[in-house]
């Protein structure tokens, strides 16, 4: 879940990297210890999205719940 506190959960140089790449830290899924966003997380977020899974599989996936 996106981090909600006022303290961005990444070390300063990593935050700087995110900023330089135009990535909003709050949208990055952290994988570091204690929920820290790592450089690899930023790079993954910056990389072009992986190719979409085959249509059949997508159709088979459960539909998202309708918003209440």
């Amino acid at each position: 879940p996106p981090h909600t506190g006022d303290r961005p959960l990444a070390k300063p140089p990593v935050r700087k990297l995110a900023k330089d790449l135009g990535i909003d830290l709050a949208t990055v899924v952290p994988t570091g210890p204690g929920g820290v966003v790592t450089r690899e997380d930023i790079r993954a977020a910056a990389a072009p999205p992986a190719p979409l899974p085959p249509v059949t599989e997508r159709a088979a996936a459960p539909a998202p719940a309708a918003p209440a």
Partner: protein
Amino acid sequence: MANDASTVFDLVILGGGSGGYAAALRAAQLGLDVALIEKNKLGGTCLHNGCIPTKALLHAGEIADQARESEQFGVKTSFEGIDIAAVHKYKDDVISGLYKGLQGLVASRKVTYIEGEGRLSSPTSVDVNGQRIEGRHVLLATGSVPRSLPGLVIDGNRIISSDHALVLDRVPQSAIILGGGVIGVEFASAWKSFGTDVTIVEGLPHLVPVEDENSSKLLERAFRKRGIKFNLGTFFQSAEYTETGVKVTLADGKTFEAEVLLVAIGRGPVSQGLGYEEQGVAMDRGYVLVDEFMRTNVPTISAVGDLVPTLQLAHVGFAEGILVAERLAGLKAVPIDYDGVPRVTYCQPEVASVGISEAKAKELYGADKVVTLKYNLAGNGRSKILKTSGEIKLVQVRDGAVVGVHMVGDRMGEQVGEAQLIYNWEALPAEVAQLIHAHPTQNEALGEAHLALAGKPLHSHD
């Protein structure tokens, strides 16, 4: 001019100072074929007439001061005076050691070094020694020289520039220094340590007027204590020779007399008569205009260093030179954040800063969004041991990053590296405060300041 060289270099650099040689070294390292043209000495102003010789004089001055004050530390010495010839020998030895090192470096990277006065002869060539040196790209890096004022003629004897001051064969009895900027206060400090009666004349309301006002005030207090006189807020009007020296008159009629007058009001770009205008390079008051990638309006021409209207600092020249080399080699070039460049004035006490002043922060973010904190070095053990005083002032955007670090105190210039990381990486006070600094260092004061700013003061009152 005959083009009798068949080579076309990837990069032809005019001027072998900080900006030019840094570009040459980096470009060569990245595989470019580089020609570096220098009319005088590789290393330029910084090595031969700037950064290095001034710091040698200042260090000799520090040693003289410590000899005078050594009894306070339980060391019995008697100070017998300055041997100015020996000071110059020391200074020149430092320069020549670094000069040799730099020459070796340029040679080892296979840069084609050409000695001679060059002139831009086309958007892709420089003429030197009767030869045309062709390049796919040309970098202008001809630097700067001391400026004077209309009617104020630098004679090199009684009215001098920093170039003369650095080779003066005597310690002047008394000196007026015109200009309280970096160069002015550094000479004021060194000369005072050598025994000169010094008066600085600065037209703006403060010494080191581009620093945060707090730093200026602290420096003024320290200089007052050292007996360095200064007159602020009134501009220079005229200078005339007296029987034994020089008399300076200010706009308000006040006069000062001394043996020598050092003119340290700034430096102007070296760009006249070098073919820049003829080749269509856009300029402003002698400066070559560039964009954030150091490109001029002529696609094959870049410019760096004191020749362009950015901060006149050697390491700015390095950074700009490297940027150009990397861009030409096809690497991704990152524009320089000039606020993030560290600034050190090496007088005693030193003044160092990175980021922006409180005044500028208030302008940018609004007065209510700016938080500041001062940590007094009186609480810092190591500074007490050195018998120095001063402060660290932090400027923070409320609940946000530290955007300014301003320091005054002996040796505080060496703290600017940590401050540089804090500013450029946009660190929060709490992130620095979490890392308890080494005791007992002066560096610890930077840690304490961040502890206090983060709301958890350790060795300071709430």
